[in-house]
């Protein structure tokens, strides 16, 4: 029987909830509210934390009545997000009760046909378990099974997804992070790890540079702190190839040539040296190789060169160099956009060095702030499971047996390249490579070559469309979890506010089901524990370190409100760097060993190919977080269709007018999207914000090559992706 997904819409639960959710009597206070409409229960509130891949990781208060989520609010006890959410946060009720949610396990026959049939959890688990055992038998190991999990839900208990794989044996794993690894490595080489100041400490800055960072869209809760600093007299400088909403608010906006941020920082450094605004004392006492770098600059860097390279006039470089070096303290926030280039990590290293040279590292109100993982010291209990006895693994170059790591950032290629044994089955959770990976055509081809694909998700996205079985995931309102941020210092608990809707299960619950099934079919084939309530699983993530950091004795104390880690406001204020030398390594041997320059010197940016002279930038959207949120009806009304921003001069050259459909293409692929003419972008850069729109094939990654950024291997296992070195041609469609 051919069952369309639509058949499952408007189930009893959805109908009931939408009726109760929309209650006009609430508005009018009219006495006409019938008895049936009377809520039988007082409003309850729960604490939740937004688990998305986002700087702000907001504390939320969830209002629940009669088991139905009525609305969400910000948690006023959260000192950074301060009782407010962003537009995505406020759209959550629509995500929970979306008629498009995946409600039951379903199978698609054949894959890609859209012919979905509802199946029971038992059938789903049976099919999956048998496939796993079959592959293990055919290939002698579970290595043909490949996991791709990343940032769909950053809750700590969600590392149970990795745990699911560990518990069945050694598997193939997509390793790396697409978003920010070049910058992570840069800070790892320089300081030993990434470790940013408390963002609330930005209020103490006398000068603020947001470098390739669009806080208005991606970290809106930082604005009160930025504004506070400005009220106290700080100047806000935004450096970005795109005049973003954040840049529009700046005292000074600098439209830098993409990928030349390092040259700008070097030009500034040169001027700072020339005027002897260098904090020699700090730099020499805390770093190694500083003088060597100064010599390099004196020899190789001129303001004329920097100006030529970056497109920024000399006097402006001089102005910001003077202001940055003399306003003490001065803070820099390095965004993730600026490191998505083939020289991105190197550019971050140069900016780091600029911070060191002016003595802004380790200072309150200062810092070269990129992100941190200081508050992530949980047990990852759900993640660690021993492989079943007798499991055969992959022998790595170091001779150790274990999982087989492949590059997350070249996933399609790397999956296909495996031969001993080949990858035959994919398990996807918290990840949507169909929308987010480079070279979408290659992804589609690779998926088509698989024997079996399982995806855990909440919506029928592009990856689900390419799967055999989809398992319905809970939303974070239906789970127990704990969330830390890679930006602020707060940690919050996430309560189960409502029961899991339909037949959805959390990743750990899925692992438990799978373990039961596998062990029933072949005793001993899975080590994942088969007991424990969701709250018990959460409890197992805490340890004395976390307790101490948060000043609590029991995780339950977090139910009273999120806690801020007990850490100094300024990172590195103790001067204890985590590099091999324990100092800031301006000269970094580890970098050199990894084939990179030892010093933060200029590395040429990727050259624009002649055939494809236009840079296609695809930054983070406003109404979505990657492929999450934009498909919801509220978002589709607010932002109904994708656009590509084109400078009017460039548009005129190709005969493109406002609202025309434009074909954006290169040798890899193409997309067609509506033009919006605006001078917020620069002459040779077009911009379209990545997103997954409902009922749309729009996907910015069709033209994106899997070109690696220069760094990432050291700390994250693989180099990043040069997302913003995407070159294309345009024509009127």
């Amino acid at each position, binding site marked *: 029987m051919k069952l369309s997904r639509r058949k499952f819409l408007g189930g009893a639960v959805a109908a009931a909830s939408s009726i109760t959710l929309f209650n006009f009597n609430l508005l009018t206070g009219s006495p006409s509210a019938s008895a049936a409409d009377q809520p039988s229960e007082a409003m309850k509130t729960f604490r939740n934390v937004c688990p998305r891949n986002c700087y702000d990781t907001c504390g939320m208060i969830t209002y629940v009545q009669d088991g139905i989520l009525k609305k969400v609010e910000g948690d006023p006890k959260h000192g950074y997000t301060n009782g407010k959410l962003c*537009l995505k946060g406020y759209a959550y009720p629509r995500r929970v009760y979306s008629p498009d949610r995946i409600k039951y396990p379903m199978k698609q026959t054949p894959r890609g046909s859209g012919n979905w049939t509802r199946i029971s959890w038992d059938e789903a688990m049976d099919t999956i378990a048998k496939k796993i055992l079959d592959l293990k038998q055919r290939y002698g190991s579970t290595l043909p099974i490949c996991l791709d999990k990343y940032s769909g839900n950053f809750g700590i208990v969600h590392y149970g997804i990795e745990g699911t794989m560990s518990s069945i044996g050694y598997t193939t794993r997509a390793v790396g992070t697409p978003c920010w690894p070049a910058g992570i490595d840069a800070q790892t080489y320089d300081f030993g790890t990434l470790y940013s100041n408390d963002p609330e400490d930005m209020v103490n800055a006398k000068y603020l540079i947001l470098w390739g960072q669009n806080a208005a869209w991606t970290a*809106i809760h930082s*604005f009160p702190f930025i504004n506070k600093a400005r009220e106290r007299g700080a100047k806000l400088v935004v450096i970005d190839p795109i005049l973003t909403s954040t840049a529009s608010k700046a005292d000074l*906006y600098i*439209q830098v*040539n993409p990928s030349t941020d390092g040259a700008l920082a070097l030009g500034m450094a040169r001027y700072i040296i020339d005027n002897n605004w260098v904090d020699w004392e700090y730099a020499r006492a805390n770093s190694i190789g500083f003088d060597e770098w100064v010599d390099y600059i004196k020899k190789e860097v001129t303001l004329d060169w920097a100006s030529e390279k970056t497109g920024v006039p000399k006097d402006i470089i001089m102005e910001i160099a003077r202001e940055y070096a003399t306003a003490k303290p001065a803070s820099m926030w390095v965004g993730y956009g600026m490191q998505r280039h083939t020289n991105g990590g190197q550019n971050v290293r140069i900016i780091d060095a600029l911070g060191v040279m002016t003595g802004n590292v380790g200072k309150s109100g200062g810092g070269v702030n990129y992100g941190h993982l200081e508050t992530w010291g949980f047990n990852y209990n759900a993640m660690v499971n021993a492989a079943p006895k007798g499991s055969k693994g992959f022998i790595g170059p170091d001779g150790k047996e274990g999982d087989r790591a492949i590059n997350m950032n070249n996933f399609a290629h790397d999956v296909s390249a495996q031969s001993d044994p080949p990858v035959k089955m994919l398990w996807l959770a918290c990840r949507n490579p169909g929308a987010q990976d480079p070279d979408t055509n290659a992804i589609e081809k690779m998926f088509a070559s698989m024997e079996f694909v399982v995806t855990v998700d909440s919506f029928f996205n592009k990856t689900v469309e390419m799967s055999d079985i989809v398992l319905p995931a809970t939303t974070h309102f239906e789970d127990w979890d704990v969330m830390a941020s890679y930006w602020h210092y707060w940690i919050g608990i996430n309560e189960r506010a409502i029961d899991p809707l339909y037949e959805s299960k959390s990743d750990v619950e899925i692992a438990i089901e799978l373990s039961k099934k596998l062990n029933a079919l072949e005793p001993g084939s899975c080590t994942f524990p088969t007991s424990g309530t969701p709250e018990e699983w959460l409890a197992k993530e805490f340890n004395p370190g976390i307790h101490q950091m948060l000043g609590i004795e029991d995780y339950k104390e977090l139910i009273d409100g999120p806690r801020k880690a007990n850490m100094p406001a300024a990172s590195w204020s103790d001067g204890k760097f985590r590099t091999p030398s324990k100092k800031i390594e301006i000269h970094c041997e580890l970098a050199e060993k990894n084939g990179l320059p030892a010093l933060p010197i200029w590395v040429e940016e990727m050259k624009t190919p002649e055939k494809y002279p236009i840079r296609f930038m695809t930054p983070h959207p406003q109404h979505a977080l990657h492929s999450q949120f934009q498909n919801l009806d509220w978002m589709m009304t607010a932002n109904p269709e994708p656009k590509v921003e084109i400078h009017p001069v460039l548009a005129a050259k190709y005969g493109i007018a406002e609202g025309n459909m434009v074909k954006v293409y290169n040798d890899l692929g193409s997309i067609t999207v509506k033009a919006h003419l605006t001078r917020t972008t620069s002459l040779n850069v077009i911009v379209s914000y990545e997103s997954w729109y409902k009922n749309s094939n729009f996907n910015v990654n069709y033209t994106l090559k899997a070109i690696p950024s220069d760094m990432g291997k050291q700390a994250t296992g693989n180099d990043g992706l040069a997302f913003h070195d995407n070159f294309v041609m345009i024509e009127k469609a």
Partner: protein
Amino acid sequence: MSKQLGFLHNSEKCVGCRGCEMACKNEYQIDATPQWRKVFQLHEEDFSLPTRMFFSMACNHCANPECLRVCPVEAYTKRDDGIVVHDPNRCIGCRLCTMACPYDRPQINPAKKKVEKCNLCYQRIDNGEQPACVAACIPGALELVEINDTLDQKTGVLKTLPGLPSPKLTTPSIRFIGPKQGKQIRRD
């Protein structure tokens, strides 16, 4: 003159984050189509330099509400504090108010076939709370204010912005603080 509540929107502070828009939807779980509050982007041609500048607008609780005047069922009432309340229980969906309001703020809900609009969260106000949109605005760009001469005499307080209908039509209870542009170093 009696009291008139309204909004003060500061385009200098507003970053166009659209939090207010969604906070409103969240508060009342409004269906997708009617947008009680909406954030608009000003045309960059209206500025000396290109820019992304915004204003956020819901019902303006006008002193001369056209919606109220034309509505045949008296679904609209003006409270003593100036809030123009629309009662969907009375609405028969004639859509006349949607034609009459220059701000397109009363909108038809196609599923319910009735009009809806912002009622300035009067229940929240009556409880001593801020409207949901105001409470949600992170940079503090949106305020609930009393519209009066004292406000209008403050420097920088504007009655309209480019791209808005003339306030003469309905005397809207909204005031603005105009956008401010910084310096730009551009390559075009």
